[in-house]
C-alpha cells in the first residue's frame, strides 16, 4: 500500500469550453494528506475527478505508481477511491446498502462487505442509521455515510471532495482524524476543501486559483 498518485501538468476542460485546470502538477504520496483548497469554482472537484479517472485531461497525465490512469474503471482497479462532493449515494438504498453494494462491486466477499460496512458506519457514528434510506438521512449523515463508504473501500488512494462541508465541528474533526488515519494506514489522501482550518491539519496543501495550482505547503 504505497501507491503515489501524480498529476503532471494537467489541463482539463469540459467539452470545447475554456480549460478549468491549467498545467496543474501535484503529487499525492502514501502516508500523507494533501489538501486541495481554493474558492468555489477554482477547480477542486475537477482536479479530484481527473485524479479519479472520471475526466480525461486535455494535456498532461495522471499516473498511479507511474502508470497512467486511463479511466475510472482503471482507477478503481488501482485502488483510487473517490468520495464525491454530492456523496454519490443511491436514494433507493439504505446507508448500509450504499456502502455494501460498492464493496461487493469491488469484489469483496459478502461477509467481509457486511463487516466492513458495519465498522465504517460505526466509525462515523451511523450505526443507528444503517438501515435508513439515504433520503431519510440528514445532509450531514448522508455526507458521513458517503465517507464511511470511502473508508470501507480501504483504497490506496482516497480522494475526498468536500467531505466536511455539511458537518458540525465535532464530526468535521472526526472526519479529518479519519483522513489522517487513512494516511497513517499508508494511503495517499487528497482532501478538497474550502475550509482553511481543515486544510491546516493536512500534511501538504495545493491551492487552486482560477484553475492554476500552487503548492503552498509541501
Amino acid at each position, binding site marked *: 500500500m504505497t501507491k503515489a498518485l501524480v498529476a503532471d501538468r494537467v489541463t482539463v476542460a469540459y467539452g470545447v469550453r475554456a480549460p478549468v485546470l491549467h498545467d496543474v502538477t501535484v503529487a499525492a504520496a502514501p502516508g500523507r494528506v494533501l489538501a486541495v483548497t481554493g474558492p468555489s469554482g477554482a477547480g477542486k472537484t475537477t482536479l479530484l*475527478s481527473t485524479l*479519479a*479517472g*472520471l*475526466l480525461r485531461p486535455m494535456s498532461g497525465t495522471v499516473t498511479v505508481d507511474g502508470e497512467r490512469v486511463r*479511466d*475510472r*474503471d482503471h482507477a*478503481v482497479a488501482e485502488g483510487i*477511491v*473517490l*468520495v*464525491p462532493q*454530492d*456523496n*454519490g*449515494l*443511491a*436514494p*433507493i*438504498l439504505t446507508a448500509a*446498502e450504499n456502502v*455494501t*453494494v*460498492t464493496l*461487493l*462491486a*469491488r469484489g*469483496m*466477499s*459478502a461477509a467481509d*462487505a*457486511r463487516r466492513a460496512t458495519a465498522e465504517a458506519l460505526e466509525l462515523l457514528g451511523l450505526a443507528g442509521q444503517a438501515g435508513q*434510506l*439515504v*433520503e431519510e438521512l440528514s445532509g450531514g449523515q448522508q455526507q458521513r455515510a*458517503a465517507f464511511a*463508504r*470511502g473508508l470501507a*473501500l480501504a483504497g490506496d488512494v482516497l480522494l475526498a471532495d468536500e467531505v466536511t462541508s455539511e458537518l458540525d465541528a465535532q464530526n468535521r474533526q472526526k472526519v479529518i482524524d479519519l483522513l489522517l488515519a487513512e494516511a497513517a494506514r499508508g494511503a495517499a489522501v487528497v482532501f478538497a476543501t474550502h475550509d482553511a482550518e481543515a486544510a491546516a491539519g493536512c500534511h501538504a496543501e495545493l491551492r487552486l486559483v482560477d484553475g492554476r495550482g500552487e503548492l503552498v505547503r509541501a
Partner: protein
Amino acid sequence: MLSIVLAALRARRSSTIAVWLMACLVVAAAVGAPWYVLGARERVTVQDVADDTNVHRMIILTQDVTIAAVPGETPDPTVIDTAFANMRSAIRLPGAIDITGLRVVGSLGGRINAPVPVAYRSGVCDHVVVVGRCPTDVNDVMLSRALAGQLGVNVGGTVPWPTASRLATVPSLRIVGLYDPIDVENAYWGKGLLSATAPVGSPTADAMFVTESTIRADAQGATVERLLVVTPATVTSSGPDALADQLSVMVAAIGNSFALDQDYFPLATRIDADLRTVTNTVPVLAVELILFGWFALYLVLRAMSAGRRADVGLALLRGTGRVGMWRLFGPQNAVPVVAAIPFGALAGYLVARWLAGPVHSSDQPVALAVSAAAALLVVLGALIASAVAERASRRAPIIDMLRRTPARRRGWRADAADGVVVALALFAFVQFKIGGTATIGGTSGAATPTNGAVGVAAATPALLAVVIALVAARVVAPIALRLLPAAIRAGHATRMLTAAHFARRPGIDRVFAILVVAVALIGYAVLGWQTATDAAHTRAVEQLGADRVLQIRNASAQRVLTVTRAADPTGRYAMAAAAYPSSKVLAVDRTRLAAILHAGPGWPSGASVAAALDANVATALRLSDGPLRLGATATTLPRHGVELAVDLVDADGVGHAVRFGPLATRRNTYQATLSGCPSGCAFVDLQVVDALNPDSPAGSPVQGVSIVVGSLEPDSGPTGEGASGTAASGGAAAPSGVGVPGGLDATAFGDRDGWRTSIGDATLGPAVSTGPDGLHIDLPTGESRGEFKLFDPRVFPADVSLPVPVVSAGTPPAPDRPGLADLDVFGDLTVPDRVAAHVAVLPQLGTSGTYVDLSAALRLDGGAGVGAQPQIWLRADAPASVLARIRAAGLVVASDVSIGSAEASYGRQAPFAALRFGLAIAVIALLVAAIAVITLATVERQNRAAELGALRRVGLAARATAATAYATYLCLVAAALGVGLATVAIAHLLVGRHVTVFADGYAVPPAPHATAIGWVFVAVASAVPLVAAAWYAAARLVRTYRRVPGGGG
C-alpha cells in the same frame, strides 16, 4: 402561463409524447368499437346470406288463378295483375333478387314421363345461352336443348302445349330458341323448372319458356309466382337488423293470402345469433380496454406528476394557490390527452373499417354519435384520472415532494379499489359458472344462441387477469425485499440493486399489474384464436371427411359410384359416397376409403374403417341386351296368369325388368328379350308378378304360386336345360353362377345360402327353398301367411353378408345383440347390422351415426340408391381431369366445399369477428403496457441516471452499472410475462374449456386445446414488444448516465 406550460411540455417531451400515444390508442379503441360492431354486424350477416344454401334464401309466393272459368271464355288477365300487385305489396325487400313468373304444368307424353312446366319468368334470357332467340310473341316458345333432343324437335318447329294444363285452347307453340341454363344452381331458377335440379324421386322436365302474353292468352288458369332471393345486397340495402325484422313481420302478415314456400328460418336464426354475438361481445371488449387504458393513463400521469413533484414542492413553497397550481400543472397532463382525440379517432375509424368493413349508411349516424361519445368518455375519464393523479401527488408533504425517492405508502382508496375489482371479478366468475359462456379467445364472453348470458360474466377472463395481477403486484415489493438481503449475502451487486429497485421504487407494482393484464389479454386472445382456428379446421375436416366434397344433385348413388370409379380408375383421388340424413347413415365406397378419408381426431384410419366395413359383397351377375332364357317349373298357379320378373339395374342406377311367362304348370323354358342394357345390367332380384297387373303394389301380391326356377341364361341357341350353368364366383353367399357372364344354372339356383328374401322384421317374403332342381319359390295364400305388415315377393341373391357390418359412432350396441337397432339405410329399408367397429366420431356424422359400405348398401337397396344424397370425395391433389371427367359424365355439382373453404367460411362468422376485435384490443393493450414501461422509465430516467452515475463514480464497474439498468426493466417484464402466462393458463382452464367457437353452438369433439406452438407464439408475441420497450428504456437510461462525468465506459 401558456408559455410555462408549453415549456414544461417541451422539457418533458418524451413523457408527453408517450401519454399522447397512449391516449391515442385508447381513443382509437373507443372510437373504433362502434364502427367495428356495426361494420362486423353487416359483414357477418352478408356472409351468412352468401354462405347459406339457395333453399334458405328463397321466399316463394304462389297463387293459383283462374284466367277463364270455362274453355272458350274470354280470358280475364287482370286476375294475374291483381295477384302480382298483391304479392309485391306483401313483401318489400330492397336488394333481393325479385322474379315474377307464371306457369302451367302438363304432360307431353311419349318419352317425356315427367311433368312439363310451361313458364314465363322475368329475365330468363339473362340466365340462359340461347340458340335462336328468346320468345317475344304470343305462342313463341323456347325449349331446353335436352328437352328438344328428347322430343326430336328444333328451332322453327312446333311443339304442342302439354296436356292437362288448364288450357282454354290447345294451340301449337313455335319453337324460336333452344336454351342451356348458364348456371343451374343459380337461385334464379327457384324450384321445379329444370330437370337437373329436380330432387331425385320428383322428376321435372325442363321448362318450356313462353311470353307472359302467351299464358295470359292461352291458359285457362295458371300459377302466379313471385320469387325473392335474399342476397348480400339485401343486407347492405336494408341493414342487418331490418332484414330479419322485416321478413318476420311480412311473412306473418301474408297469412293465407298466398301459398308461401320458404325455409328462411335457419338463416334468420343464424343471422340473429351472429348479430347478438357481435353486439354483446365487442362493446364489452372495448369497455375493458377503456378501463385498462384509464388505469394505465392514471398510472403514467401520476408518475409524471410525481416526476414534477419537485416543481410542485417549489411552487408550494412559494405560496402558489390552489387555482394557480391547477393552472400551472393541470394542462401539462390535459394537453397530450386532448390532443389525442383527432388522431386516435381517425386511427380507430380506419382500423375498424379495415377489420370489419364499411358501415351501412343508415347506421353511420349511430356509429358517429356513439364513437364521439366514447371518445369524449375516454378523454373525460383520462382527465379525471389526471386530476386524481395530480391531487394524489399533492397530498404528500412538501418535504416528500423535494425527495428524489418519495416514500412508498398506500392509501385506503387504493386498497378499496382493489377490493372492488376483486369482488367484481368473483361475482362475474360465479355468474359465468352459473350459465354464461364465453367467446373463445378475446377476453370476453359472448352471448350464444342458447343462453344470451352477457354482462359482467362476459368480462370474466379479463377480470380474472386483473385479480391475479393485483394480487401478484402486491407481493412484488415484499418478495423483492426478501431477495435484497439474499442478494447481499450472495455478494451480487447488480441483483441487489435490482431487488432494491423493485422493493422501493414507487409505482412499480402498478406497472407490473398493467403488464400482467396486458400479457394475459394477448395470451388469452392468441390462444383463443389458435384454438378457434383449430376448431374450425377440425370441424371442416369432420364435416367433410375428405379434402374436398362435391354434392351431386341429379344422379342416383349408383350412377355417382359408376362415374366416380370411371373418372378415377386408380382409386387414389376420388370416392363416391351417399348420405342418408334421416337415418344418419353414410355409405362410402370402402375400396377407396383408405386413400381418400382425411385423418382427424376421434376416428381411425381409412384403412381400418374400410376393413371393418367389408360386407363380402359378391360380384353381381350381369346380363346384356338380347334374348334370355328362363327354365322354370310351376306346380301351383292361380287362375289368372302370372309371370316371373327379373329385375336388373344398369350402371347409372336405372332399373330394368324382363318378364318371362305367363308361367305354365309344367317344366318349361321361357324366353324374353332384355333391352336398355347394352353395357350389361346387374341382376337384382326375381319375383312372381301378376301377368295382367305387374305393378301391383306391395301388400297385395300374387298368391297361391309354387314354382321352381332352374336356369337363367342368354338365349344363344338351342341348348340343353341347365347347359348355361357355370361355376360360382367369390362373394358372401352368392348363388353358384352369380358373377360369371352367362347365367345361372340349377346348381346356382339350388344353393340355399345363395338366396334370401326381403330383410328386416317389417316385411314378409315368399317361402324360399332349394333343391337339386333349383330355387323353390312358394307364395302362400292369404289365409296361410299369418299376420304380417308388408309382403315383398322379391327373391334376392344373397350377395352381401348379413347382418351388414357397420362402423358406428354414438351409443354403443347393447351387449346382447351384435349391432344397433336395425339400420334404416334407405329410409324405408331396415337392414340387420353388426357393429364391426365403434368410434368416437365419424366424419360428416359427428358423434352419432353409422358408416356402411356403399356397394353393400346399393346391393341391399336394389341397386339404385335413389333415396340417398350422393357425394364425391376428392383428395386435395386430385388432378383436374378427374373432376372434368365427372362433369363430362353429366353430373351436376350442387356444391363444392373444401376443407379450406369451409374453414374460411367459419372464419367469417360472428365469433371470429369477436375474436378479431379481441386480438386487436389485446394488441392495443400490449402497446399501452409497453408505452407505460417507456413512460415510467422516462419519468424516472434523470433520477435513475444520477443514481447509477453516482454509483459508477464511486466504483461500480461499467458492466455492472449497465447490467443494473437493463436488469431492472427486463426483470420487470420477465416477471410480468411469467405471471401473465400463468394467468392465461388459469383463465384458459377456467373459461377456455367452456367456450363457443361457432355461432350455431356447434362443439367440436374433442374440445380444442391450446397447443405448444400456441403457447410459444403467445410467449413470443407478448415478450417482443415488452422486452423491446424494456430494452429501449434501459438503453436510454444507460445513455443518459453515461453523459454524467465518469459514467461512460
